[in-house]
């Protein structure tokens, strides 16, 4: 049953984006209004078919999306799906590294906070978690940049790779767009180092946001499992405190955490738009911001609709994973 829900969700999101974006008028006027004489403008609108009834346009749009055609951008005349493949890899890479940061920080600290519940460690970790949430990713990014790139000069200021590394990766016969993998394929450790150095700050900026969420989540759930009978039983058998937290309390707490990761994807994608803008990380979010500035609403509508599909799909996959892990959840 759950699987069927993904269809209306995608449908609703795509419709919502279409209706909202179109209610402002047609994209050509938004982009070129005031720059062209009225008759030329009308001609272009007619050529693009934006003067037909909105319902016809909507049905046509749905048909196009069903066949994987999300439109063509006005500014540089590229298919939106091509933009997805070119820049999606960058966003995927950023999302992967930030999730890594979030796990590495969130889970151990969450366990510590749960174990020292209501003590000093717990209180400071919880304030840390709230700070992670309270700091806008772009402000965290700006601070990290200021300290580690500008003042200390340890890490690059922006971008995904330096020009030299980029050139080496460009010539690869079958490049993936995922710079980490491409860098490994060049076989040059300097390129890999360069790519990783560029990823550190954006990943931390975006990862901290999610780390705060994970920390609280792990804490709450482990507190729940720590007070169960089987943990008491294990303790009475002389199981070490470390093992108790790590194995007995943590494992059962994992299931709700996995469920919530699905919800975090939306947070992560929203954060990616801001992080990519801050670090000029040329991914989907960066392009979205660019097209927003250029008032290219065909591109914006396409990218937003695509992201909506991604979010719906991820939630669906996470539900399945949760069901596979937990025998109690059956759909």
């Amino acid at each position: 049953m759950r699987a069927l829900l993904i269809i209306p969700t995608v449908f609703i999101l795509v419709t919502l984006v279409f209706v909202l974006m179109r209610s402002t008028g047609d994209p050509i006027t938004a982009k070129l209004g005031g720059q062209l004489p009225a008759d030329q403008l009308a001609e272009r609108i007619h050529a693009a078919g934006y003067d037909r009834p909105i319902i016809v346009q909507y049905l046509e749009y749905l048909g196009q999306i069903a066949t994987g055609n999300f439109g063509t951008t006005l500014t540089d005349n590229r298919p939106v799906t091509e933009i997805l493949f070119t820049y999606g890899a960058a966003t995927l890479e950023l999302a992967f590294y930030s999730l890594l940061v979030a796990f590495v920080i969130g889970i151990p600290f969450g366990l510590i906070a749960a174990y020292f519940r209501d003590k000093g460690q717990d209180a400071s970790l919880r304030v840390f978690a709230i700070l992670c949430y309270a700091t806008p990713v772009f402000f965290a990014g700006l601070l990290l940049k200021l300290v580690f790139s500008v003042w200390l000069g340890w890490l690059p200021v922006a971008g995904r790779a330096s020009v030299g590394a980029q050139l080496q990766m460009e010539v690869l016969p079958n490049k993936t767009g995922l710079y980490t993998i491409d860098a490994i394929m060049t076989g040059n450790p300097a390129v890999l180092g360069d790519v990783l150095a560029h990823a550190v700050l954006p990943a931390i900026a975006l990862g901290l946001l999610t780390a705060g969420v994970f920390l609280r989540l792990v804490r709450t759930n482990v507190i729940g499992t720590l007070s169960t009978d089987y943990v008491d039983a294990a303790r009475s058998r002389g199981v070490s405190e470390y093992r108790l937290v790590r194995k007995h309390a943590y494992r059962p707490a994992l299931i709700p955490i996995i469920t919530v990761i699905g919800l975090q994807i939306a947070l992560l994608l929203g954060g990616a738009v801001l992080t990519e803008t801050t670090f000029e990380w040329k991914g989907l979010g960066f392009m979205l911001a660019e097209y927003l500035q250029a008032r290219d609403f065909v591109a914006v509508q396409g990218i937003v609709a695509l992201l909506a599909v991604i979010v719906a799909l991820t939630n669906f996959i996470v539900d399945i994973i949760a069901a596979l892990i937990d025998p109690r959840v059956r759909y």
Partner: protein
Amino acid sequence: MSTDTVIRAPKRRLRDRIPVVHQLRQSVGLQRGMLIAGLVLTGIFVFVAIFAPLIAPYGFAQLRDAAGPFGSQQPPSAEHLFGTTVGGYDVLSRVLWGAQTAILVIIIAVTLSLFAGVLLGLVSGYFGGWLDRVLVVLCDAIYAFPSLLLAIVMAIVISGGQSNLWGGVFAAAISITVVFIPQYFRVIRAETVRIKAEAYVESAKVLGASNSRVMFRHVLRNSTRTLPLIFTLNSSEAILTLAGLGFLGFGIEPTAAAEWGYDLNKALSDVSSGIWWTALYPGLAIVLVVLGITLVGESLNDLADPRLRGRRRVAQASGEVAETSVVPGGTLVAGPGGLAGLEDGESFDEHGIGVRS
């Protein structure tokens, strides 16, 4: 808390029923510290927002005074404690005035989403049927959507991107409202579905009370428990969304109002050349305000949930709040994603949301 709260009169006294005051009395130790810290930060924020015109040394769009133009990117000095921006504005003044913009957006956004969300949730939960199903699926879809993206789309729809003070404030507020409505909707609907089955609702119906009377008098009054909580959480999210919109260039023009996100956007290039004051202060303002509001929300949340309340002093002063907590696991605060912390084995169904299996 002493014995006076234990022996309670049938109707609780007023000071126990005022939301925050009651929780403050109920809290102990660290919890109380967090709540007080949050209240202080929030208090400062509200104070600055109200008295910004009196506190700020200059206007938010002021470029020159009697001594001439302020100059661009001036480091902090006696005249400009926080320096000046690339556009030649006084950073301190814009930080202070920014509080006013932020609070306006919070008030409008939260009020609008509160009314719309509560009304929809009440009608949907009370009448059920196809309307209910449609609304639930719709709200679930919106809830799953990255809220910032939705806010961007709404900002385009409302203002085409740029605007004056009220236009900008309303555009930002309504954009945020659309994101928030599903949250109120879910909570109120879940409560309504639960309360609808209570005996007193049945008896009211038997006595011939009209639907609207039952809905507003019997159901609504009993389903508002968690609202103060969502209220605080949404306030902090509203600030972050506003700043995000401003940062992406969909905020309010600098001459119309001071907005922290816009200032941070302009500070982006400053940072690369080592100019720190234009980024640090507006950013800190956001962090402190969100921190303050979230601390209050977090503490209220914990105090409302018996599983998370401090273990040492539990039941006495908890009152009705503790009976049933709709907020699972106590981590609703968890972040823009909300609803983090579903308890073991708990699915969305238990909150009347989600899908039936």
